[in-house]
């Protein structure tokens, strides 16, 4: 089971309403390389991982991604909660408002809804771990594009933290892949 800790993993602050930035950042909530995709990808692949290190890494990284999803949600929520209708209209969030008001919803930066096709679960640990390493690099790149776009230094600070986490996850998945490969090589001899 899971427990909820009543705090964010990293403090979130925004300088003021900014629907334009929210509209872009929301892709890390419900986009292909976003935190929901990441969390579900790892938490669903863990069942068929062959070694304890891999089961641990996927459980723990999948859980950390949920905390990142919460950080992204807190950013989007705070960037739009006090935005006026005029601001939402001026920054292209009128379509989002028509469907969701200022509620959170799993979409990418251009409004496409989240889909399970964003993730893979192949049952082959080598394929799955390569998928995860690529996913971490894609998430890192997305955070870099978002940092390039951001005009709010407080938001940029949180985006930098999230970018750094993808680098650490990539590293841990690389180690997990090596351990699985060693395990497979050992198996061949018996």
């Amino acid at each position, binding site marked *: 089971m899971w*427990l909820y800790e009543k705090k964010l*993993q990293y403090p979130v602050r925004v300088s003021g309403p900014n629907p334009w930035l929210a509209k872009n950042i929301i892709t890390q909530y419900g986009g292909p390389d976003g935190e929901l995709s990441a969390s579900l990808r790892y938490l669903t692949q863990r069942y068929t991982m062959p070694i304890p*290190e891999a089961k641990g890494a996927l459980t*723990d990284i999948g859980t*950390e991604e949920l905390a990142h999803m919460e950080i992204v949600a807190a950013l989007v929520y705070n960037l739009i909660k006090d935005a006026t209708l005029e601001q939402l209209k001026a920054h292209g969030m009128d379509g989002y408002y028509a469907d969701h008001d200022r509620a959170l919803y799993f979409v990418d930066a251009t409004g496409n809804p989240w889909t399970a096709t964003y993730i893979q679960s192949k049952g082959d640990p080598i394929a799955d771990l390569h998928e995860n390493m690529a996913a971490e690099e894609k998430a890192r790149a997305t955070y870099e594009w978002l940092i390039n776009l951001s005009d709010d230094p407080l938001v940029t600070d949180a985006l930098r933290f999230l970018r750094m986490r993808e680098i650490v*996850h990539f590293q*841990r998945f690389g*180690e997990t892949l090596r351990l699985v490969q060693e395990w497979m090589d050992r198996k061949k001899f018996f």
Partner: protein
Amino acid sequence: MQRDRRELLLKIMALDFTALELNLYLDTHPRDARALEDYNRVTQELFALRQEYQERYGPLIHFGHGYSKYPWQWIEEPWPWEMTF
């Protein structure tokens, strides 16, 4: 949110992060005795700080992981997404 509450929470958040980082590292390096020692030390510090926070401000974790005064403190605002640090 009062200043000393925020400061204590930020301390817990920093320590929590250290524990998480060590945890992920240990997942793929389970025989690194030094990292394990660090993990256990941070866990102990975290336990004490959480205790202190929960005594003053109510449960930080639900489902039987922290005591509550009357009335039920778990639902007290602010929730994490409402905290502006």
